[in-house]
């Protein structure tokens, strides 16, 4: 895996393989070679350099644990992949665009509210007024339906007649 990373960065690693092939090789000699090569290739990223040093180590005790090499799945989705500058720029653009869309929406809502306010207010009044009227008219209907006691027997006959 470490060799693959080195190959992708155009760093030659054949010397490591040939050193590994030497019997009774002092691990210090090998480590110096590894450290020098990695220091040149990974100047600005100490963390990755240390990881690769561990991965290339001859001593099995120094080899990194799997946990050290794996990035949590959640973090993986966020981390940049392709050209950093490009991705940063696109992320920035996306944020700006989303803010612009939001402000445009809010502005549109406000304009709509101002435009429709003259129509909405009378409509609301009309609604309230009609409710008010309906309430009283119902009450009046109830009152009209109240049949005076004197005429009850006539009404009764009429109603039954209709029925």
């Amino acid at each position, binding site marked *: 895996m470490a060799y*693959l990373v080195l*190959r992708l960065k155009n760093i030659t690693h054949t010397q490591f393989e040939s050193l590994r092939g030497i019997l009774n090789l002092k691990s210090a000699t090998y480590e110096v070679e590894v450290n020098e090569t990695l220091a040149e290739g990974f100047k600005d990223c100490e963390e990755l350099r240390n990881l690769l040093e561990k991965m290339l180590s001859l001593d099995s005790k120094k080899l990194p644990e799997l946990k050290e090499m794996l990035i949590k799945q959640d973090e993986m*989705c966020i981390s940049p992949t*392709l*050209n*950093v*500058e490009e991705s940063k720029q696109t992320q920035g653009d996306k944020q700006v665009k989303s803010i612009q869309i939001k402000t445009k929406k809010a502005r549109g809502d406000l304009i709509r509210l101002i435009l429709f306010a003259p129509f909405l207010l009378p409509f609301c009044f009309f609604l309230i007024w009609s409710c008010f009227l309906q309430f009283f008219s119902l009450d009046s209907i109830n009152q009209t339906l109240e049949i005076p006691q004197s005429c009850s027997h006539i009404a009764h006959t009429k109603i039954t007649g209709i029925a």
Partner: protein
Amino acid sequence: MLQQNTEKFAVPPKIKFTCEDLELVAETVSYKVFEGKSRYSNEKHRIRILDNTKDFVKEDDGKVATLFIQELFRLQFRHPGSILINSFEMSDEGENGKHLACAILPHISLSSQLDQEHKILDLENSKLTEKLISDVLYDIQFLWKDFHMRRIFEMLSPENICIMKEGGTFFLGNWAKLFESTVTERKQETTSVSQA
């Protein structure tokens, strides 16, 4: 040259109908990868087609087809939405048995990144390199634990590692290579036993 390859190779009917301008971009032990444009959306896709013309596929087509589909499942799990499920096709047409094909979102192999002209990945970015190590190790872990595959490190070459252009997930492809190496080993063992 590439077009000639496409003409010779039997492309399943549905893919032929829905995609145009197919161009061979990569080849593995068991399948070929074409780049094509959807006739409906004009979007570019990568189309994987099981290569029935290969002897290795012919010998154990069931196993190779299974690996082909399992690889797609894994990719969909790692990068949801990368497989265009509707495009998946299994057809009996053609001379060499079943055809399997599926369209995938655009991705590039790391081997193309070794060439300075086609370089689009910023490998100077340490985060990207850490992600590469992590993503590939997830796939190795999966193949080791769930598939009990060994000697996976032999296939850790830039040709077999790809990155999704959208989302940037690295993944290990060409799983059939592992199966191929075990088959050839077994063959060698049996021949040596019979010779003895």
